[in-house]
């Protein structure tokens, strides 16, 4: 795991929430993909909450979750949403508005 300080926006902390539904392969993949991307590009300045809607169905409404998996960037504002299994790291970073870490090209 690389723990290099990011090139830009180092002061920002990312508060993320990932909505999944049970331990489906897609959910498992999404969780793994997110962890990898965050560790690579947001190392040390992110927090992720994984919400399993099968356990907490009432929470789907709050973040207007329709699609599973949905990743919500709650902080910094504005709120952003990324849907899918997060298999494309580049698009996830675009969605989160994060400049990729230098050597991950």
């Amino acid at each position, binding site marked *: 795991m690389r723990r290099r300080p990011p090139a830009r926006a180092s002061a920002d902390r990312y508060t993320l929430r990932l909505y999944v539904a049970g331990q489906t392969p*897609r959910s498992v993949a999404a969780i793994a993909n997110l962890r990898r991307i965050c560790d690579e590009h947001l190392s040390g300045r992110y927090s992720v909450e994984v919400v399993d809607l099968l356990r907490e169905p009432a929470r*789907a409404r709050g973040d207007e979750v*329709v*699609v599973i998996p949905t990743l919500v960037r709650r902080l910094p504002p504005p709120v952003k*949403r990324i849907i899918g*299994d997060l298999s494309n790291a580049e*698009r*996830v970073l675009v969605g989160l508005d994060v400049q990729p870490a230098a050597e991950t090209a």
Partner: protein
Amino acid sequence: MKLVLAGVIVPRARNGITKTNGAARLPKTPTGISGLDDITGGGLPRGRPTLVCGAAGCGKTLLAMEFLVHGAQRYGEPGVFVSFEERVEELIANVGSLGFDLRRLQATRKLAFDHVRIERNEIEETGEYDLEGLFVRLGHAIDAIGARRVVLDTVESLFAGLANEAILRAELRRLFAWLKERRITAIVTGERGERQLTRHGLEEYVSDCVILLDHRVEDRLATRRLRVVKYRGSAHGTDEYPFLIDTNGIVVLPVSSLRLEHRVSARRVSSGVAGLDAMLGGRGYYEGSSILVSGEAGTGKTSLAAYFADATCRRGERCLFFSFEESPAQLIRNMRSVAIDLEPWTKRGLLRIRATRPTSHGLEMHLATMEHEVATFRPTAVVVDPISPLVTRGSIGDVDHMLLHLVDDLKSRGATAFFTSLAREEGRAGELAVSSLMDSWIFLRNLEHDGERNRGLYVLKSRGMAHSNQIREFVLHDGGIELRDVYTGGGTVLTGSARLVREARDRAAAEERRLEVERKRRQSERRRAALAARIVALQAELAAEDDDLRAAAGGERSRDRERARDRRDLLLSRHADGVNGGARGRRMAP
């Protein structure tokens, strides 16, 4: 006679729909929407999704909402409304104008609302996904209130929010299957597409029941129509049915489903005019029949209607009077001129006059409000005066359909329906096709003669009774309506003053004839007397003649005797022998 509804809404079966094979077996969920349950033979397929599609603003959302509200209020079935377009607040405000208190239903856990929104430009897609979030939300809402009904309005919005159409289609298919599995009766709405029913072909997935809504403008008049495109496993009305959205929500008018199964009454009701009753087999109209009075302008149609209304109220029965030409006050005032005072009846609540301008609404709105009035007031007699301006509010076919529906409705309620209609010409041709629905048809016409116009009345038809075939003169005066025998002498029909003149002339002629007879009688008497006198004279003459004759005969005999004596004397003097002996003997003997 009156149907008592004990708090339950009994869907009225029309068109024999419920009697067909499939309908008996397929369980249905009533929508509670007036008319729709009639067309579908009881409602939507229970436990299955129904697709309601149509263009923007055609009433999809309202129909779906009514389905939920009625379900919650009348049928004890809670419902979930998932809106993909309007926000919940907007939704509640929009239907609040129709008297649905969604807030209260929400508070009492009869209804639940959810707004599902996906903004494509706020969302980044990466990799595979599914709509499990929607399933979870929906499932949660359903479980929270024990919902039996669900509305998805308009689920197609998801196509705008999500780029991967293949996933979306697969997920929608799964969603409908899931709803079916949970035995949820659902309405799924969809926007009307160009070449198919819905823009994204939802009809492929929701195939049990498809209802199409339409909102067309014809002759500057907007008309909403509903059609059941498909109803798997059930017979259904297949026509386009007009519907409207009034202050109580959606009212579908299943117009062409004319049932000829009305209960009939043998009771007769007076027309209010004794002479007319006499013409109608002596006892007036049949109760629950429909009567059409048509005629030209000013022939007394409204007066005849007012007499009928008055007669109804006199029996203590309720009468509903739809006036499309006069205001209630004007009607009451004008009818006083023909000795009818309707005001006491309105005050006693027996007569309700509803006056509207024909142009104020479309035809459908008129008929729906009329039916609503009839349903709430429950009159035994209904007057529509006149139906002709309604005719201008829609196409001919529509008018026929709507009137048919009204007649049908009134008949099924056992109310006697009295329609007036302005006929421009003779009446037979160019009359509304609805006339075939009418049981009695009375025609009023102007009879023109000698620069004078008079009213004539005749019964064109009256089913089930021996009615008069006479043309009667129909006289309106401040004493009321009077039916007079028209003058039919001399091969012509005369009315008004021509009749009076002719009658006077006839009376004079009759007097003349009477005098003539009298004169002749006297003349013959005189002649008879003269003849008798002559007979007496002749008899006297005859007697005198006889006397003469007798006198003449007597003279002759004495002359004969004289002559015989003279001859004897002569013979005696000559002393003739023959004479001597004989004469001597005879002379000697005495």
